[in-house]
């Protein structure tokens, strides 16, 4: 059997404003989309919200609009629908590949884009049953005093493990946030903070409504290191967008997930522009990734492996995209 879920009330608002209002009125509440992350945590006793606000009846959140000026994806678009959208598969390959690499088919049919972007951070000391965590004295992320991953440290090191965020970031995607203060668009990268216990820069009642991808994207791809070819979260996930002309890099952007408490864009990629992506450049790229990722002992696979794998994947993806651009010859 599964552990019993805590008691809660369920509300099913019809529009975003109603959902935000409900959430403001009840501090102990959570938005519920696909539930593939939240429900597992509820059964583990990690969260005990008095109210669950089911977003499935909100039409706006399920819109996916392909327009001249880009693509707007409603937060409740399922992962399966996202990876099946032709415009995504053809023009934003990294996003389609990342979506298809999430969990397994059953989960992808339920899980949503907004849910994956707002996925809770993960740690081997945190994603465990109530009995397990209590026997271990809980942890900094929930009810405890110390981080078992870095007991001397001051913050939680749980790793962000969503696959979509880096794949969207490399295109400079923006997200629309709705809250008491109305609506605003922010760069997706600004949604996140490097703190495993508070990795989302959202206030309590705020929710992600949509993601916008700009038009005319460069070629891209995504790859993740994991033990199994399905189901597993990324030990390291890498998205690369690369355009080249006349044997020289024109655009290079690298997004990373699974290695830090937030997904992030690799800094310093502008140094590769205007040059060929030769062996020396690929080695520089590997070193750059190794330097910026901060994997900790949050998974059973070693942190060292995740660092090496992130770098190796970045190198492979960038190298392949450069070759495919025809610029290499």
């Amino acid at each position: 059997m599964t552990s019993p879920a805590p008691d809660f009330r369920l509300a099913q608002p019809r529009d975003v404003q109603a959902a935000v209002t409900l959430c403001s009125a009840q501090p102990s509440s959570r938005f519920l989309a696909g539930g593939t992350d939240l429900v597992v945590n509820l059964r583990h006793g990690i969260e005990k919200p008095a109210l669950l606000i089911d977003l499935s009846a909100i039409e706006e959140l399920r819109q996916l609009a392909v327009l001249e000026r880009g693509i707007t994806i409603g937060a409740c678009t399922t992962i399966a629908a996202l990876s099946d959208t032709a415009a995504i598969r053809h023009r934003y390959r990294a996003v389609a590949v990342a979506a298809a690499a999430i969990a397994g088919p059953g989960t992808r049919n339920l899980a949503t884009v907004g849910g994956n972007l707002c996925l809770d951070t993960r740690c081997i000391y945190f994603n465990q049953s109530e009995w397990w965590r209590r026997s271990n004295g809980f942890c900094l992320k929930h009810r405890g005093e110390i981080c078992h991953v870095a007991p001397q440290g001051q913050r939680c090191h749980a790793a962000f493990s969503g696959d979509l965020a880096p794949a969207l970031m490399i295109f400079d995607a923006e997200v629309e946030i709705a809250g008491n203060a109305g609506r605003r668009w922010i760069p997706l990268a600004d949604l996140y903070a490097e703190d495993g216990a508070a990795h989302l820069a959202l206030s309590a009642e705020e929710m992600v409504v949509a993601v916008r991808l700009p038009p005319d994207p460069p070629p891209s791809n995504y790859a993740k290191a994991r033990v199994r070819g399905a189901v597993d979260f990324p030990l390291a996930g890498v998205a690369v967008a690369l355009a080249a002309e006349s044997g020289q890099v024109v655009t290079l952007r690298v997004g990373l997930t699974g290695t830090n408490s937030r997904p992030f864009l690799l800094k310093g990629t502008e140094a590769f522009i205007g040059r060929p992506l030769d062996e020396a450049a690929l080695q520089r790229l590997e070193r750059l990734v190794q330097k910026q990722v901060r994997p900790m002992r949050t998974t059973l696979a070693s942190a060292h492996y995740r660092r090496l794998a992130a770098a190796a994947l970045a190198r492979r993806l960038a190298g392949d995209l450069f070759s495919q651009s025809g610029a290499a010859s």
Partner: protein
Amino acid sequence: MTRAATAGTGAPRRGVPLIDGVAKVTGRATYTADLDHADALVGRIFRSPVSHGEIIQLDVASARALDGVFAVLTGEDCPHTYGVLPVAMNEFPLARGRVRYRGEPVAAVAAVDAATAQRALDLIEFEVRELPAYYTSTEARAAGAMLLHDNKPGNLEREVHHAFGDVTAGFARADLVREGCISCAEVNHAQIEPHAALAEYEPLTQRLTMQSVTQVAYYLHLMLARCLDIDASRIRVIKPFVGGGFGARVEVLNFEIITALLARAAAGKVMMQLTREENFLTHRARPQTDIRLKLGMCRDGRITACECEVTQRGGAYAGYGIVTILYAGALLQGIYDIPAIKYDGYRVYANLPPCGAMRGHGAVDTRHAFECLLDRMARELGLDPFVVRRANLLQAPTRTMNDLMVNSYGLPECLDAVEQASGWRERIGKLPPGKGLGMACSHYVSGAAKPIHWTGEPHAAVNLKLDFDGSITAFTGAADIGQGSSTMVAITVAETLGVALERVRVVAGDSAITPKDNGAYSSRITFMVGNAAIDAAKNLRKILIEAAARKLEAAPEDIECIGETFRVGSGGQAVLPFADVVQAALVDVGAIAVKGTFTCPPEAQGGRHRGGAVGSTMGFSYAAQVVEVSVEEATGAITVDKVWTALDCGHAINPLAVEGQIQGAVWMGLGQALSEETRYLDGLPAHASLLEYRVPTIVESPPIEVHIVESHDPHGPFGAKEASEGALAGFAPALVNAVSHAIGVDLDELPVTPDRVMEALVEHRRRARLGALRKVAS
């Protein structure tokens, strides 16, 4: 793809779908958790939060006082130990005085619903004085380590020291002697159906009815009688549909006894369903194992001597430990002709969930080390891996040095089959970088010839009933746990009688109806129960022929039986249909009940040395396999492209089921080789979900080409031997040998996860650089 087994006529036989297959795939099969439990109380277990401690206080008063709670039990309520080996029962269903691993059951409640049961658990006050805890064999064996069990010095459950032949002389005449240290992670069965039990106690008659996920209802029956201290005749054990065993459910499990204790205390019905985490805590699977192996070899590949030291981290209680550590040594024999073998085995206690039996019990990790080292030595001598295996074949019939019988031996044909099918000779050494082929062999017993509870009874008994309607019902205690044993019984009965399969029904696994059986373990059912079923069917056939003879006024020896019709052999006379023969047979006696049995003769029951019964069997299955891999050096990811497996099962009674069992064994080997492992953080299982315990998904599952080899065992039912365990142990070494071929790195640890591959590659490159520098310097 399967190379079909052939009947006597040479025509391919496909076999039949399992007789309970339709019920399963249509969702109508009733598993334990599906049993009607609307009126049952919910049982839940309070588990130790610490790895090792003396119980100072266990206060359940508040839990007992809670509304809706019908029973709360602690170790005080059951003073009896339980266990699978009569000589090693050192475990209480609920801990008494001391807890020895995190997750050990300490108290249990029965309440009206799950929420109330949980509230009751939360009210239990538990105080312990913590004791030192050990999580590795080395820590537990260190001088001065506190003993987990006072009567087990050195924290050793059992030491085994066996020596056969002259090992020193063997190594002396070898051209090459090599030693390897190989380590295999602990794995779990991860059977898909979680543990569950439904117990009903009738206070007026003082009778207990127990339905559980068991593989051996007989052991459960014995342990319930022992722990509840009631006469065995008042217990009825029923095995509903079971969703996988793999050894997890051979031993009686603590939650089964706890459920029965709760039902009696509450004077009613209790349903216990464990979470996936609790399944992993219950464990009883393959231990973490360190193997130090030394082999001597001549230039032609002949093995001259073998020295093997095995250390198993067995967990906190004895369980099956003695048998596992004996198997690990005993099954060094029976596959190759090795003139000298020395074995030293150590079964160690540690503060972790107890280990137990798992598919390929005891033999898998040792076989892995052996087949890996064999390949490495072959490479050093410039010999092909197939040549080395062929240089060491046995000749059946024979007896091994440790007195195991080898009556049939299809390993040579298995080697031929996979060598040809994989295109080995044309492809080996010619694959592109990053691709590799590897091979290995393995074997397993067809049932332990000496059962654990030796009572003098036959090894198996099957009853048949023939009634007025012409139906034949076979009654067997053999537990069908998905392996197809009930189908096997139906086929052996139908084929012996020459009747249609549809005429035979099988009733299995209910102690009130079916004769006792020793259960589903050590691949005993096909061999033993199959032989008993054939014996019963022969007895029934004799009765039918005599009835036909009376009716046709002929001598029984003149009666000829073709399918379901009977006639006098000379022909030309009246032909009797089956219904008429049944009618004739029932005259004066009514419904007919016959019985068949099977007994392993004493000479099959192993050597006279201490522990010599373990490994003894009437017939070994043999397997060879070739694995093809691709390795991505950048991420250390291994892809298994294809597997070719050949298994000698003596005779495929049901080729379709045999193919499924072989694929299942290979696939389970794949899991252990690639990704499955338990990992504890200070004794807490970090792997206790199907997310972190990584059984392969369909993405990792390669095409498995199965070749069935039939060596026609002289004692097996229709010549059959086991088919579901033998192919497992060969997968991991074949894979590791293939990886070595692909990237030139020998991996010494299982599973070969990407991080381990990467680590080995980094180390390999570092050594290569160092080597190159030294060369320049010199």
